[in-house]
């Protein structure tokens, strides 16, 4: 990979000294506010590079570039030890409980007999067999929604439970800060992604690493949302960089004439009844709506007790985490059959190699062309996410209460309604039931036409039971519940959380839409409403 990247830098783009100077600039700027052992070591590294670059000949510049790329690559790749993976996976699901315990070394030392079993809480559903079959035909790129730092673990567990081989996946550097979990994550195929690094060369190395692993038939996981959903909504717009690696790898496979050149994109939607980091995430969303946000490194995930409390309360309430595997597609967004054939909208088999050939029929990469294919794949993935989103009691209850608050404060912008509250902050319980009833009717119709999924427990439940269930869940985990019932009225006790959970229904067009516009923008990245 290092040689490949150096060659590319030499043959295209700016001169090497500029590439290096840019890397030094970006890294020194990052290190200005970064502290800790790793940052200290990085400072020494970059000082040295800067010193040597001053008088470097062309040859030395090349060597320096190799060093920098090697430095980035070393940090990204980490070490994968098949023995550790084997040991963890052979032990089966309980070992994943152990992995979860790793967030708390104390608990690990103190035994983990009382740790809840994920088997009961994590429900796998959707096109699992299809994905498994395709794994035999080519390389899988699993693209899950991203709600929580627990996602990596839940997805790891899901892959294991599905009987798939290990996947390679990128995880934020902060997840590796706990030595125990970092050790396991590296050995379960995780590589590090440092989102604080803004150097374009770093991003190139990261992308190349993914590309090379894909070309070598390693199944990959990308979180195409890029970061956890701050608003609580299902991702409406994706970061396409890594998703596009599928096409590049496909072209390379065709060029090399590998026997199984195909890659398959498998969206997966994770749906939580409660989200571990909901308070921090929604706070971040509201603080800086529409602007780039800071990277959260000290949220609930970094507090072992919160993780434990979350999981125990989740399980004590018989809560569910759904992992729904969507219909797989090719890197161009076409559906695929069980044999891995790509299908056109009428169900006819397509020779996809012709999507990437030049005028002479030779497979080539073409940035503009591939970006367009990737954009379309992104749209298809977003549609899958929304369709395979599982709606639960907390979401419906929050939507109903928030919708009523909007109704009673019609002129208040969403941000003020959430931040300062309106004139009416509580609503009648009977009204909540009526709103839930309306929502359930709309959601059931959507579920019937396969445009969303419903938690089986609310499929036929009465509105009263759905509300009771929602209130019960809100009460048990969060510091302040999103909503609380007092007599025959329901109070919005934490409007941030209320907004967060109601956002899970954004994009479906259900009540209070269309009378009111959506609370989030069309791409669900910023505020909407009025």
């Amino acid at each position, binding site marked *: 990979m290092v040689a490949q990247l150096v060659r590319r830098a030499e043959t295209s783009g700016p001169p090497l000294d500029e590439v290096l100077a840019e890397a030094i600039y970006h890294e020194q700027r990052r290190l200005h506010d970064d502290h800790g052992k790793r940052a200290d070591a990085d400072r020494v590294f970059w000082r040295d590079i800067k010193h040597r670059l001053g008088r470097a000949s062309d040859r030395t510049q090349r060597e320096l570039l190799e060093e920098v790329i090697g430095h980035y690559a070393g940090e990204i790749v980490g070490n994968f030890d098949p023995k550790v993976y084997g040991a963890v996976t052979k032990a089966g699901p309980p070992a994943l409980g152990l992995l979860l315990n790793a967030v708390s070394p104390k608990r690990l030392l103190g035994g983990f007999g009382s740790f809840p079993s994920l088997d009961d809480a994590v429900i796998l559903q959707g096109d699992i067999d299809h994905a498994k079959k395709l794994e035999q035909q080519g390389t899988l790129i699993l693209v899950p929604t991203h709600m929580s730092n627990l996602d990596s673990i839940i997805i790891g567990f899901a892959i294991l439970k599905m009987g798939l081989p290990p996947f390679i996946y990128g995880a934020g550097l902060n997840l590796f800060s706990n030595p125990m979990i970092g050790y396991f994550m590296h050995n379960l195929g995780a590589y590090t992604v440092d989102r604080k690094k803004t150097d374009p060369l770093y991003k190139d190395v990261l992308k190349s690493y993914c590309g090379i692993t894909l070309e070598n038939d390693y199944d990959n996981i990308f979180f195409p949302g890029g970061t956890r959903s701050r608003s609580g909504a299902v991702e409406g717009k994706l970061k396409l960089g890594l998703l596009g690696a599928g096409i590049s790898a496909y072209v390379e496979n065709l060029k090399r004439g590998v026997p199984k050149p195909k890659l398959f994109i498998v969206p997966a939607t994770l749906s939580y009844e409660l989200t571990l980091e909901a308070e921090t995430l929604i706070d971040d969303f509201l603080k800086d709506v529409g602007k780039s946000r800071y990277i959260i490194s000290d949220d609930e995930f970094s507090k072992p007790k919160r993780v434990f409390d979350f999981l125990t309360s989740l399980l004590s309430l018989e809560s569910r985490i759904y992992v729904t595997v969507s219909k797989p597609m090719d890197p161009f967004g076409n559906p695929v059959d069980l044999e891995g054939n790509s299908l*056109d*909208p*009428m169900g006819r088999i*397509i020779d996809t190699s*012709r*999507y990437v050939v030049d005028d002479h029929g030779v497979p080539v990469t*073409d940035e503009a*062309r591939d970006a*367009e294919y990737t954009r379309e794949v992104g749209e298809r993935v977003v549609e899958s996410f929304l369709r395979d989103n599982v709606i639960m009691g907390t979401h419906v209850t929050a939507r109903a209460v928030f919708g009523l608050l909007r109704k009673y404060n019609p002129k208040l912008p969403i941000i003020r309604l959430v931040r300062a509250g309106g004139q009416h902050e509580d609503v009648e319980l009977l009204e909540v039931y009526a709103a839930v009833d309306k929502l359930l009717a709309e959601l059931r119709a959507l579920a019937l036409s396969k445009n969303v999924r419903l938690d089986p427990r609310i499929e036929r439940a009465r509105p009263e039971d759905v509300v009771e269930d929602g209130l019960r869940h809100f009460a048990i985990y969060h510091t302040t519940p999103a909503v609380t019932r007092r007599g025959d009225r329901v109070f919005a006790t934490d409007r941030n959380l209320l907004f967060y959970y109601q956002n899970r229904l954004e994009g479906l067009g259900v009540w209070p839409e269309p009378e009111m516009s959506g609370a989030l923008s069309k791409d669900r990245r910023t505020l909407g409403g009025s």
Partner: protein
Amino acid sequence: MALEIAMIGGGRLAEVMARLLSAAKGDIRVRHWARNPEVREKFGERYPSFSRHDSVQDATKNARIVVLAVPTHALEEVATRYGEVATADQVVLHACRGAGPGFVLPHKVIRGVTCARKIVTLGGPLHGRDLGSGRSLAAAVASRFPQAIDAVRAMTAGTPVKLHPTQDIVGVEVAGAMSNVWALASGMSDALELGDTARGLLLTRGLVEAQRVGLALGADAATFAGIAGLGELIPRKVSSMERHQEAGAELARGKSLAGSILEGVTTAHAAVELSNKRRLKLPLLRAVASTLENPATARAALESVLALDLDDLVLPRPAVR
């Protein structure tokens, strides 16, 4: 190596495309197919350099560009037929100026029944009757794939048509479709003798409404101030008469256009559907659609639109240099 082009269709649009391809100076080979054998025969006589084919499969085999030269109402059927034999590397060109039920744009229709991705739309003020006049002509050519635009430019090399490329396929298609509704309104206004000012006002409103529809569907605002929007409105609608204007005039005189397959008629109905769904403010479009339902209301419908305040066109910000 000659550029292989398959042309499908035998009507007015096919005639325009055939004239355009005949004027091309590049190394191109045109393979023609139309559903009706007699039309195929006549095309063959008029354009002897085109090879005649008996099936879509035969005509499109090894073609680099497939020209679907059919009007909007026939597009789905023809594209479905082509979809049976389409290959993923082919560039598909169309020049439809209408939207189907639900305001489905032509590129979506093609996308929905074929494996084709490299879809190109020809839009703007291109008129068949001007081809062969020796004058310089212009058209918008839109595709999200630059490679596909290059192929279409190679196809038209040497013709008097200057192609203005854009990636905004949605904008060009919306402007094209809505232009026919403007033309209906313009024809109605003329027949009712509302005067030049009223016509100017209605056309301006038409452009604003087209932009509003376009923005709702993800188009670029700039497209409507460019050749596919204003660039078409000025020469085409103000100084010339054409089918839609004539139809609009007949409508204002009380003749029903029920059952018409004119693109402006189907687009007006589809746009009302879209407007209801997306809550778009499109008074002119609604006025045209309501007149289509009841021609006797033409004057009242247009006058109610003329009485409204005019919204501004959202102009793109100038680029900072």
